[in-house]
């Protein structure tokens, strides 16, 4: 459907640190700042972790412990598809009577896409359906853990030194304020707490842990390196046996060269994220906690608040000839919206890419509200709007079609134009102050957006 709608032909400009032009379907609207926000001007926060195949939720602490991998699901090391467990019946001798054999179920992992099985790498069939599969142990784990501990300690020590230096310098000025902030202000406080509190997340020792000195041995450089085998250059390559770079790098701790060493790994977890406006710190998008639910608790997408412009039909465009393009404007809210279009002025800084001039009617256009029950209500009276037939082509519930006149200015290339759309917006957030008599609760605010259209190449 996305290619049918061609959403990237109509771009809205987002004013922020970076000027971003993007289709309305990918933008968010901050109701409190009354501005459009794109993905780059919001802060992304991790809400929850879940496994994409078994849809199991995992708290963040557990996810961190398991290195963001699911406990039950495996990925095919060959094509990265999810592995499924299959069962076969194998004859096995009965425990009491070795002469007779009985059918027992044996389970193995298989990929439905590339037909890889766990028997390919020599993993024996397990007798339990889940939980029997182990990832291979990395021989360097111990050394890496020791190094990580050593560096954690080092980082902590450096932080304490830095804090102490800062405090030592400023002790004469504001001792009291700083002692609260760091918690280690005076010597007395430091001697009382067992372990210093470090601000580094992820590299901090637990409180109360003993500060024992960890010594690591430096790595020894070897003089002699193992020589390459003699037939390294002459041996013919067995291509199906060699792993591809992608397969190799997906397992960075082993990086196997041969396909017979490709063991399956646990599946990576995915996250649900929530978005927050950077200026006013309100949430723009907050998904449900349940991994099986695709709904949102808070969903301030721009499509629900801002009228959408879509290109309906484009005539043959010719150089320096004025032609009429038909656009549609759709009103997403339930009350009547007043929209005015006007062309960009000369020297407008936002107007970078236009290759055509546009002439729009300055009249105010009325958009009827979106009425969800309108299609079922047969006796509804059609609302009477006085439409100028030169400007408004058709009107259908909350949508109108408008004509704009486009004159391409460049002989070659795509025809792009831009204009400003001004509309009123009623904030439906509950008013904090109680409405007094005679006072209108909702004052409309007027928003202006810069819209850019890409109409395609000139007619030959």
């Amino acid at each position, binding site marked *: 459907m996305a290619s049918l709608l061609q959403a990237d032909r109509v771009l809205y400009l987002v004013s922020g640190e970076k000027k971003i032009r993007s289709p309305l379907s990918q933008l968010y609207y901050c109701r409190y700042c009354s501005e459009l926000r794109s993905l780059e001007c919001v802060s992304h926060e991790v809400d929850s972790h879940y496994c994409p195949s078994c849809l199991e939720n995992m708290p963040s602490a557990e996810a961190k412990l398991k290195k963001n991998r699911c406990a039950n699901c495996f990925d095919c090391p060959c094509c990265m598809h999810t592995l499924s467990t299959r069962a076969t019946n194998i004859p096995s001798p009965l425990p009491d009577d070795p002469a007779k054999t009985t059918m027992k179920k044996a389970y193995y992992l298989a990929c439905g896409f*590339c037909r890889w099985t766990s028997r390919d790498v020599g993993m024996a069939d397990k007798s339990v359906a889940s939980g029997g599969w182990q990832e291979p142990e990395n021989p360097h784990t111990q050394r890496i853990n020791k190094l990580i501990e050593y560096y954690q300690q080092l980082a902590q020590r450096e932080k304490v030194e830095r804090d102490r230096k800062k405090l030592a310098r400023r002790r004469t000025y504001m001792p009291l304020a700083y002692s609260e902030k760091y918690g280690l202000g005076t010597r007395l406080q430091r001697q009382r707490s067992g372990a210093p509190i470090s601000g580094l997340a992820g590299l901090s020792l637990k409180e109360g842990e003993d500060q024992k000195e960890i010594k690591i041995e430096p790595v020894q450089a070897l003089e002699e390196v193992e020589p390459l085998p003699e037939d390294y250059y002459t041996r013919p390559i067995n291509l*199906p046996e060699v792993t*591809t770079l992608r397969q190799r790098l997906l397992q960075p701790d082993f990086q196997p060269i041969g396909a017979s060493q490709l063991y399956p790994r646990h599946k990576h977890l995915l996250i649900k994220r929530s978005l927050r406006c950077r200026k006013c710190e309100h949430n723009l998008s907050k998904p449900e906690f349940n991994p099986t639910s695709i709904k949102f608790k808070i969903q301030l997408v721009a499509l629900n608040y801002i009228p959408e412009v879509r290109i309906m039909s484009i005539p043959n465009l010719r150089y320096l000839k004025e032609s009429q393009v038909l656009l549609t404007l759709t009103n997403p809210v339930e009350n009547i919206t007043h929209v005015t279009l006007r062309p960009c002025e000369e020297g407008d800084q936002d107007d970078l890419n236009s290759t055509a001039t546009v002439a729009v009617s300055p009249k105010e256009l009325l958009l009827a509200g979106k009425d969800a029950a309108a299609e079922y209500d047969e006796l509804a009276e059609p609302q009477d709007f006085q439409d100028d037939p030169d400007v408004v082509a058709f009107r259908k519930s909350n949508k109108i079609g408008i004509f704009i006149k486009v004159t391409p200015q460049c002989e070659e290339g795509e025809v792009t134009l831009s204009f400003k759309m001004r509309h009123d917006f009623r904030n439906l957030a509950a008013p904090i102050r109680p409405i007094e008599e005679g006072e209108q609760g909702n004052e409309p605010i007027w928003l202006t957006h810069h819209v850019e259209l890409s109409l395609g190449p000139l007619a030959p």
Partner: protein
Amino acid sequence: MADLNAKQIQKSVKIAPGAVVCVESEIRGDVTIGPRTVVHPKARILAEAGPIVIGEGNLIEEQALLINCFPENIIPDKKDVEPKTMTIGINNVFEVGCISQAMKIGDNNVVESKAEVGRNVILTSGCIIGACCQVNTCEVIPENTVIYGSGCMRRVQTERPQVSRY
């Protein structure tokens, strides 16, 4: 029981007893179908440039196309071109919508949905041509090869999936 199709008996379509060939399928030319082979409706077996011999136990699903056609740049001339026989072995599966023009197909192969096998390919045994893969090279596919993915990656499988029949 042989289900013979009264509509489609051309001069030389031989269907062995035990085969199930549906009425809605289209079979043209000189075709021999072995026992226990199932041809689903809307399958098409066209023997244009020569006869087709299909072995036992094959499964030809809907909208599959098995065609023995002329090579592209040779215009069929009645005298010159000698009809070559297309042979298909036993226990092969041609899934929905696949197109197979290979002249020689062995046993236990699977041509998955919407795959295309060209005229100059020879499938040996146990090969699996993945869904939507197009193999139009000029080669013999070694045994137990799996061709999968959008880039037609290949690997050798060690197991043949058990073929379950009715």
